[in-house]
């Protein structure tokens, strides 16, 4: 099944009100055991003007990692993941010993941010990772290459609208879930969904479509998370090869988004420009 709206990916549809809340460009590489806590401070100093805030987070474990490096030799505490960000700028950088990520986030209504689309975010990613790569070379004497995994993740949050007011209308938004409704019975009503489908696009590119329904904890309003995650690695495991990989991943996620969501919603809620 394909959606006519998607058409040729060279002429992409862009929406006035896309449901996207976050776009994450992630690159996992060989762990750098020599990368210690003290280097984090030096790196932050390079980017602090744009990213004045820093937070520690749990390390993201790559699901395909057969041998994650929990702790480097001589380290008292395991190095966490770091966020570098600003409350006024939608871009956020994440660094951990084996990964570099750049997020575009839709900020709160006090500082609204229009989705700049993949083309702008990927430029930001390459600019920032080139600086990070230079930092790693200068202070640690290492390369980011070979790389383990690239990810391009679109996080969309869908809240109630004209065609989707309750769990029973989820299929109006996401037609592929229809088969779950079909097995309802009089004493068994569809009440939510938590599912991931994986598609193989080519030998170096896989695509996860994840749907999670639930409620906002603050307002108890219905909410559906729709995550499209492209992942894989260029065959030669090189940083240069990752450029073409991300562009292919963008094409694949674009098509899947159109195929997974209802045309009526695309046209009436998100509204093509």
């Amino acid at each position: 099944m394909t959606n006519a709206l998607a058409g040729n990916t060279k002429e992409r549809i862009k929406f006035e009100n896309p449901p996207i809340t976050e776009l994450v460009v992630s690159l996992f590489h060989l762990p750098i055991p020599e990368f210690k806590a003290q280097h984090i401070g030096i790196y932050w100093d390079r980017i602090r003007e744009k990213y004045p805030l820093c937070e520690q987070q749990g390390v993201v474990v790559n699901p395909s990692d057969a041998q994650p490096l929990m702790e480097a030799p001589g380290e008292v505490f395991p190095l966490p993941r770091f966020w570098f960000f600003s409350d006024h700028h939608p871009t956020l950088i994440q660094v951990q010993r084996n990964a570099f990520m750049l997020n575009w986030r839709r900020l709160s209504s006090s500082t609204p941010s229009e989705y700049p689309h993949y083309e702008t975010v990927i430029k930001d990613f390459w600019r920032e990772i080139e600086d990070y790569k230079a930092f790693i070379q200068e202070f640690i004497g290492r390369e980011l290459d070979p790389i383990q995994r690239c990810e391009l993740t679109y996080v969309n949050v869908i809240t109630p609208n004209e065609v989707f007011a309750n769990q029973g209308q989820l299929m109006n938004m996401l037609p592929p879930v229809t088969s779950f409704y079909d097995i309802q019975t009089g004493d068994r009503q569809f009440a939510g969904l938590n599912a991931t489908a994986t598609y193989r696009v080519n030998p170096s590119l896989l695509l996860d479509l994840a749907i999670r329904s639930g409620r906002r904890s603050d307002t108890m309003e219905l909410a559906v998370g729709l995550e499209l995650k492209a992942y894989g690695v260029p065959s030669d495991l090189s940083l240069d090869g990752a450029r073409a990989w991300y562009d292919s991943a963008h094409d694949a996620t674009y098509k899947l988004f159109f195929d997974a969501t209802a045309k009526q919603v695309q046209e009436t809620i998100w509204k093509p420009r």
Partner: protein
Amino acid sequence: MEAALTYACNGGVSELDMMFNTASLDRTSENYSYQRWEHHRRNILSARAHSGSGFTGTMTLPRRLFEATARDLQRIYWASPNIIPEFTDSQQIFDAIQALYLSSNTPRDRQIADRITALHRDALAEDEHILPASLSQFTDFFLAQPGLGLPKITLTPDGTLRTRWIHGPRNFVAIEFTGEPLAKLVAEIPRGDSLTAPHFGSEPVESIVSVACAIGASFA
């Protein structure tokens, strides 16, 4: 101790306190082992440092939706077979490179990792590839043999990895990692008076070094 560690891995909220409390009790016993306690403390800190989810977003609402699901799945899969996610073709190459790169025999194994990376890229350029079974056997062999020197590593037309320790003209030992239980062993060993003893054979990978050493081969 074991119960505390298991609880920590499941994301319990007070695991570290439990750990320290349990360790305190152990301190009073004759069996108290500081090393054991330190090992568990480090494991718990490591477990705490990981998010337990592959979610890379930062926004609160989707983060709760997706991370809550990851925690639920961990509990569901407690007693089920280990099901690994789909992976891409180059994943095994990277795993081998990473295993060597992070091994305790750092200088030699990092050089081997760099060589495997180069061979993989050269092979791709010629529309060939390293045989996965050969790479796996090769990696396990070197991780288990930290005392061997750095060999010359090449790729055969069949896609298997071949290693050679060359000591001079007509003086070498070579192993070809077939990916089968028996690896190929080829050697030329000087025997004095300008004589050279050639050896060709196949041996189990586990014993191939001792067999080669017994006929006078050197892996320096």
